[in-house]
């Protein structure tokens, strides 16, 4: 009997607990959300018609898309700079750069939003410092608007942007860059014609990741938006908790999931999902 034979039933049993937990306590509640969106207040697609008829619904969708696109673009730019620095740094410096990315990643999102409020509000440290230095007379509106949301969201997303880009930059053979330099290319040319094209798969993966995370982001936009600028997640929570409009809330939640899955499906040819999330080999 070959030792590498077919795995027995026992191995399948190992998968069972996680599978059952996920189906009973994850998939089922989410399927229920999808179901409510076409059954309440009455069966049919009435809730979905609101996308076409309600300007409030359209406004939330456009605000969310606008903020997500701006956030993704900025997070990619800043993340690229860090990933580039890490890739080309000497080993000791590399450790410090990575620390600067990983530590913020694991610090509570609430702590970070709180820190931004402390800095950016009317009597916050930034406004006080600027007034103290005589640069401005009136406090600048830095938070409880779209600006504040973008500052906080980009801060949250940069580490997520760095990781996939870093993975793809590490696969670039450094000898290619040295060779291009040796053949007389300027530093700018080496970057533009060799490094940048080779790192594009990572940029796309990061962009997809940051964009889908931004779409459904709740805590930071809710705190830094101050209830005035509503993104989709906060709008859903408002429908469910305050207005008890389950149909509308679940419709938007369904649209959110669909938007994310469609984004992933479009890019699945270019982006290996499991590699982004690091599962498996």
């Amino acid at each position, binding site marked *: 009997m070959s030792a590498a034979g077919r795995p027995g039933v026992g191995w399948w049993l190992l998968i069972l607990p996680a599978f059952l937990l996920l189906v009973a306590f994850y998939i089922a509640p989410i399927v*229920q959300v999808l179901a409510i969106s076409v059954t309440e207040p009455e069966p049919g697609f009435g809730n979905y018609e609101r996308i076409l008829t309600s300007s409030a619904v359209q406004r939330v969708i456009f605000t969310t898309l606008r903020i997500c696109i701006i956030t993704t673009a900025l997070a990619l730019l800043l993340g690229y700079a860090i990933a580039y620095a890490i890739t080309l740094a000497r080993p000791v410096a590399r450790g410090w750069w990575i620390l600067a990315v990983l530590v913020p990643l694991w610090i509570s999102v609430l702590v970070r939003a*709180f820190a931004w409020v402390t800095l950016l509000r009317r009597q916050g440290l930034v406004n006080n410092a600027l007034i103290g230095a005589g640069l401005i007379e009136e406090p600048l509106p830095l938070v409880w608007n779209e600006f504040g949301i973008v500052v906080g969201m980009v801060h949250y997303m940069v580490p997520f942007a760095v990781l996939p880009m870093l993975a793809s930059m590490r696969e670039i053979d450094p000898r290619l860059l*040295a060779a291009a330099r040796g053949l007389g290319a300027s530093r700018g040319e080496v970057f533009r014609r060799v490094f940048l094209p080779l790192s594009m798969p990572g940029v796309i993966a990061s962009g997809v990741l940051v964009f889908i995370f931004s779409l459904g982001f709740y805590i930071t936009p809710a705190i830094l938006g101050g209830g005035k600028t509503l993104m989709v997640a906060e709008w859903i929570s408002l429908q469910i908790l305050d207005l008890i409009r389950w149909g509308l809330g679940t419709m938007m939640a369904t649209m959110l999931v669909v938007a994310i899955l469609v984004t*992933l499906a479009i890019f699945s040819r270019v982006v290996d999902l499991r590699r982004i*999330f690091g599962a498996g080999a």
Partner: protein
Amino acid sequence: MDGAYRTGPFGRSLAWVTALYLVLPILIVVPVALTDQRFLSLPQEGISFRHFGTVLGSAEWLGSIWQSFTIAVAATVLSVTAGTLCAIGCWRISRRATELVRVLMLLPLIIPSIVYAIGLYRYFGPLGLLDRFLGVAIAHGVTGIPYVVITVSTALAAFDPRLEQAARGMGASLSQTLRWVILPRIAPGIFSGAIFAFIHSWDELVMVLFIASRQVFTLPRRIWDGINENLDPAMAAVAVLLILFTLLLLMADRALRRRSEGG
């Protein structure tokens, strides 16, 4: 110089600015927590630890910290048990079906927690799990599984499958193989997964906002209320304590990894 290609001045300065943007705003809570004033500000005349005293002397804050901690421990046990077994099963069977299972296990990372939270709010009602320790622990435990599956799968990728076959060939039962051959080898991956699952539950707010109200009032929930209702330096003190705690966990993770890599 070793003649290698290095960053130019523009790339270098942008990277520096970004690193400062990532780190400095988080550090700002430290001086704010040490302020001698009664409102959110930098220390004026000297530093004071009284805001830490306020937090550590408050039954409400301590109660929430304890609740968050016990929920996170329970959720971590659930995530680690289910996630580790699942990752091992998928790794050994390794077929199309198990690839599907692995992608399924990533769903909680992809689907926004707001969608799951409103679903749970309705789903837990009839089950009597709303505002219960068990309900929150299950929700956090299930959504923590992906972290464990990822870290354990990564550890398994470096594991020689012939060791498992050899053990089985010499007559070890499945549970013996697991216990004596596979688990010791992937222990660092399991610990990493446990730390991430723990942090996931410890920090989780969105689900708690929906499925808990009075009986269960976790630390993130109390911070959330604090940010929305009264911004005072005690909040900054809590933030500092949380940062220290996270750093401690991350250092434990790094130390464990270094030990396992260094052999």
